[in-house]
């Protein structure tokens, strides 16, 4: 099976988020980056498991600048066979999707894996857009994937239950928690990754259709209010008037 895993770079989960002066962009100074956990822990590992079971290859692709190479190398260290970096600033979901689709269209991948979302802008868009560009089925939030021949069974969590879909390759999916278990790269993998190919390709021209114009931080968390257990009326009043939840 020929498998593609799309990986993105996101700020480390404990990053303190700050915005620039006019609120049009996230401040990147001093930020540590990681591979998006949904891509790393679930999408990539499930692809590797499939390859180990039925043979084939796993390619990792990222849209980004040379600063992303460490994250791509990590995907190779965990076990991807080769990697491609499409050399462009990843400024919108549609733009990223177009770039990935352009690369993938002539490669005949059987399954294209995404994470269910990137933990920075939480768009959950790129996978569906790539599938649309390539005219293939897309299944979101997959937490189970079994493949037999050209047929795959994919389970996805839905509100209060599980939906199981059957789909023919080629298709795309986005990975949720449960699809696989995180693999930590070992020293041998890290050394082998140095010898694996990381190809850099140029981006195609593409106009964005929408543009983010402003970001706002959530209001700071307010302090905890302690209410005397005998004073139920006050609790009800606060829940009603201040928190507006009842």
């Amino acid at each position, binding site marked *: 099976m020929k498998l593609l895993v799309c990986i993105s770079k996101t700020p480390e989960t*404990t990053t303190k988020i700050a915005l620039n002066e006019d609120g049009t962009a996230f401040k990147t100074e001093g930020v540590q980056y990681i591979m998006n956990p949904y891509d790393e822990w679930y999408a990539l590992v499930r692809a590797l498991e499939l390859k180990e079971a039925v043979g084939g290859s796993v390619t990792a692709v990222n849209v980004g600048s040379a600063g992303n*190479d*460490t994250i791509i*190398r*990590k995907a190779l*260290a965990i076990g991807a066979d080769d990697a491609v970096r499409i050399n462009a600033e990843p400024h919108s979901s549609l733009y990223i999707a177009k770039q990935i689709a352009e690369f993938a269209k002539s490669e005949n991948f059987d399954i294209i894996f995404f994470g269910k979302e990137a933990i920075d802008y939480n768009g959950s868009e790129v996978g569906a857009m790539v599938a649309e560009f390539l005219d293939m089925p897309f299944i979101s939030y997959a937490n189970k994937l079994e493949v037999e021949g050209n047929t795959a069974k994919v389970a996805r969590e839905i509100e209060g239950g599980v939906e199981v879909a059957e789909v023919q390759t080629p298709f795309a999916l986005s990975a949720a928690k449960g699809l696989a278990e995180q693999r*930590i*790269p*070992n*020293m*041998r993998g*890290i*050394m082998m*990754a*140095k010898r694996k190919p990381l190809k850099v390709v140029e981006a195609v021209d593409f106009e964005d259709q929408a543009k983010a114009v402003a970001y706002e931080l959530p209001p700071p968390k307010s302090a905890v209010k302690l209410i005397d257990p005998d004073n139920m009326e006050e609790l009800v009043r606060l829940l009603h008037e201040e928190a507006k939840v009842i």
Partner: protein
Amino acid sequence: MMADNNGVDIKIEKRAKEDRFQAHDYYNIDELLSEDHLLARDAVRTWVKQEVSPIIESYAEQAKCPMHLYKGLAEIGAYGPSLPVEYGGGGMDEMAYGVIMQELERGDSGIRSMASVQGSLVMYPIFKFGSEEQKKKYLPKLGSGEFIGCFGLTEPDHGSNPGGMVTNIKDDGDAYILNGAKMWITNSPVADIAVVWAKDEEGKIRGMIVEKDMPGFSAPEIHGKWSLRASITGELVFEDVRVPKANVFPNVKGLKGPLSCLSKARYGIAWGAIGAAMDCYDSALRYSLEREQFGKPIGQFQLTQKKLAEMITEITKAQLLVWRLGSLANQGKATPAQISMAKRNNVNMALEIAREARQIHGGMGITNEYPVMRHMMNLETVLTYEGTHDIHLLITGMDVTGLNAFK
């Protein structure tokens, strides 16, 4: 509550949520490291958070060795990372070895000791001094964690002065007869093989591989340690043990054999100590912002800030020291005296930071809710083993004056 096969209660839920460690890199030293170093560092950091932090307080408290971690350390590649791949190592450079030790000791000095001994004190001498047959026979098994090794140099009456050792071998045809005893040997009660240093009939120190089931060989455990409690320590006792000549290292005679292994391990300790210091500092910094007294966070008081500011200053200096030492080691130019300076400075730095961090935590600092007291107790061993604090000072003293103050 769960219990593992060593009878240790592991309160996973309780500890798991508490490893909130965040690394501190005040001078952007990461920019001096390569992609492999960063990948190695982050891989071991993740491994420690998942495998060590949730269980270490329980094992340390009950003075039990987490036996399953010998295999785990092998899987991650912590044994002999800078040895060649064909001999069970990782094919990495000395800087990578350093960052791996730093991250392991960030978890616990005892876990780092398990890896240091296996890699630098057992695999390294076999690689460096062993015959091709010895390398083929032992190194892959040690690298994969199938075999656990230990290193026997120290004796009951010869610690800082290993050259005075009395353990000895006598020629007996195709074997040597080994007699004597070693003391304070990390891993010994659970080891499959021991690299043992003993004097031959000419009084020359020779190294050899002793296997656990050779008749006359035993390795009783030393109990009652208040330090490195999660690492197992024991003796090695040899009563007329027949060691085949094929097990003796052909390529080294004299004290330089064991001392060159110690240089390797001390280099790793110089890095490791920074890990323990960072964990203490990180915990103290967080605590100082969360704990309030007199209506404000204790981190707002000048005396607390003095402690924290001095801690991060000392950590930063230590990081630069090992970074430079690592560059020298990569070029094969790090001298034993340079390694002594870094070991002494960094371990002492870590111990002082642990003590200050303990104070910042107030009463909580003495409990296992925080890693600080465990690091502090561990570091008392680290200050003493692999050459005591004072012995390393004398090595520097001898290096700069040319005069030997040992004897």
